[in-house]
């Protein structure tokens, strides 16, 4: 387990910024109450076996005596680096993203299952959308009961999407909670 180096940190922050915008500050600097210390430490990112974990400092301290081969996970995994060095967010980051998301989209109940199978979001399935989405923004997908379902990339801006026909993609799927069942092994 090691801290992220410059490159890696930039990549992670960039990806996160797409989804949470300026709330990134929140994520990085929020006081961390986990761990048995009474004073709140901070959160930090750590890299272990190409996966990036978002953990509180006290947790990190306690995990240091676990060997590299034996440590499997700590805190919350938010994504991983591919062989090509690119960083992808995984579904486990969802709670973190959802609470800080800038752009949200709510799905109709009928199209929930389709998204959870990994399909993109069609315009006909959208119940409501936050304003001012620009193309290629990160969007967090919610159900009508405000349960976060996953996240993706906006295909068009909000203005444009209004003019599209109901079968066009508005959000390109990146990750959803159905993966816990479909792709348990790859997480």
């Amino acid at each position, binding site marked *: 387990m090691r801290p992220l180096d410059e490159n890696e940190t930039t990549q992670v922050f960039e990806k996160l910024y797409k989804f949470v915008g300026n709330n990134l500050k929140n994520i990085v600097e929020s*006081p961390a*109450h*986990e*761990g*048995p*210390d*009474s004073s*709140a430490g901070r959160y930090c990112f750590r890299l272990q076996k190409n996966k990036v974990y978002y953990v*509180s400092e*006290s*947790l990190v301290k*306690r*995990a240091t*005596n*676990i*060997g590299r*081969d*034996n*440590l*499997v*996970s*700590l*805190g*919350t*995994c938010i994504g991983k680096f591919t062989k090509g060095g690119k960083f992808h967010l995984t*579904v*486990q980051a969802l*709670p973190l993203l959802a609470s800080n998301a800038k752009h949200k989209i709510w799905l109709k109940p009928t199209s*929930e*299952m389709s998204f*959870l199978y990994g399909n993109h979001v069609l315009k006909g399935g959208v119940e409501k959308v936050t304003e001012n989405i620009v193309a290629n923004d990160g969007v967090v997908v919610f*159900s009508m*009961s405000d*349960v*976060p*379902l996953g996240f993706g990339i906006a295909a068009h801006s909000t203005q444009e999407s209004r003019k599209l026909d109901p079968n066009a993609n508005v959000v390109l799927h990146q990750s959803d*909670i*159905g993966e*816990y*069942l479909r792709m*348990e*092994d790859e*997480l």
Partner: protein
Amino acid sequence: MAAKRKKNSRTKKVELPEDSDNSSDSKLQNDNLIEQEIDDEEMSDSDGDNPFTDDFLQGDEDEEEKGSDSGDESDSDSDDEDLEVKSRAIDEEREREEEEANAELQLNIKEEPDEFQLPTQKELEEEGQRPPDLPNLQKRIKEIVRILSNFKDLKHDGTKRKDYVDQLKIDLSSYYGYNEFLIGVLVEMFPVVELMELIEAFEKPRPICLRTNTLKTRRRALADVLINRVPIGATPEYMAGHYMLQSASSILPVMALAPQEKEKIVDMAAAPGGKTTYIAALMNNAATEQLSPGIIYANEMKEPRLKSLTANLHRMGVTNSIVCKYDGRELPKVLGVNSVDRVLLDAPCSGTGVISKDESVKASKSTEEIFKCADLQKQLILAAIDVVDATSKTGGYIVYSTCSMMIPENEAVIDYALRKRDVKLVPCGLDFGQPGFIRYREHRFHPSLEKTRRFYPHVHNMDGFFVAKLKKMSNTKPKKDTDAKIQKPNSINKAGEESQQDDGDQNKKENGKKGGVVPENGKKRSPSNHNSGKKRKFPAKKEIPKA
């Protein structure tokens, strides 16, 4: 009306059969009868009474007939005499019936034991060659059980109890698919009637249980959403981590553990994570910013199971966990001895309690396997005890649980731990459940083992389970039994039998309080508290009177 009916039935038992007859004539006459005996007010109402009493005694055809006979005969005026005659007649009729019924019953009872005999050797051979005759087997099983449960009265002369039992074992194994070993063990552990209940209960699956994830939702809200959803394993709520499918028995050890906030907890065999996530939920409680949830170390030795463990932890939104892959026995070296507050050890076992989930257990277990499991469990429990810090302010507890019913894996392991380390059994906090065995055949266990709890499918409708909660009294590992004498002479605890025995009884200190600091010994112990990690300080500081 109801009151009047009651009055009818109480005061005039005799009249009821008459009331119940269907002929309209007798009804009128009955009305008259009633009129004269009861108040006039009730005249009009008794019409209403009659149809009901008809229903009330509909089954009683004989009496109805009788009643109608007598009803026809009776005239309105000479009631008393008629009544007497009628009542006598009815009583006689009833008696006659009873006698006949009894006679029949006796006849039936007498017939059966005479009929049943254990099959002879020849018959058994023949049976062995034919494909198993299930109904016949079942009948024979039932018979033997009945005889064994009332052996003195019902046994067939010349056949010993052992013969019956042996035949029962053979029949049970072929009817239900058990191997000889397992059936033998079960027969020894339970009285025959209970054994049948247990085996029947194993044939059926236990009800599925859902645990709400309090980190993400509340029970009522979840219940509302889920009540209409089928199937229950793949709903969006499941994927969002609002609940966890687990068996009821798996929830028990965590309840016994009772983790507090800000504690360090180790789950030594954590996969697939049902208990670990419950621990996290209990520690977090309301997931607000103010509460500090502590740390959970989730350890699992087998790689494939680790994946489901991590997936579950993330799905349920557990953020304060560290997952590692170690053999549980190595954990004291890795985490350091005396470093955590509580440990949950849900030990790998033979699985004899969950036969309803996995039928292959019936035929695949043998003595060697049980003892191998027991061996591993003993080592694991010692490691678990070593990892816990006895001087922890809020903790110092170890919960040991298995999903097995075998004595060598449960009581024997706890007994071993009591002898090898300075720990004490405390009540689990689970008020239902049967206490563990203190003695079993030739084994004698420590009496405090009655604080452990056993759960059975036929009694509690959950998988067979065993839970024990230990409190670590001190951080020393006694080589001899000298630590038994550390107590000041005055502070002998109430359990006199626990003191100064040489049979490896380590339950010296009555440290029932969570504080972990005994008031009387407080002055002596607190310096060593601050030097946590130096285990050997303890005996060095105090003079251990080797009495």
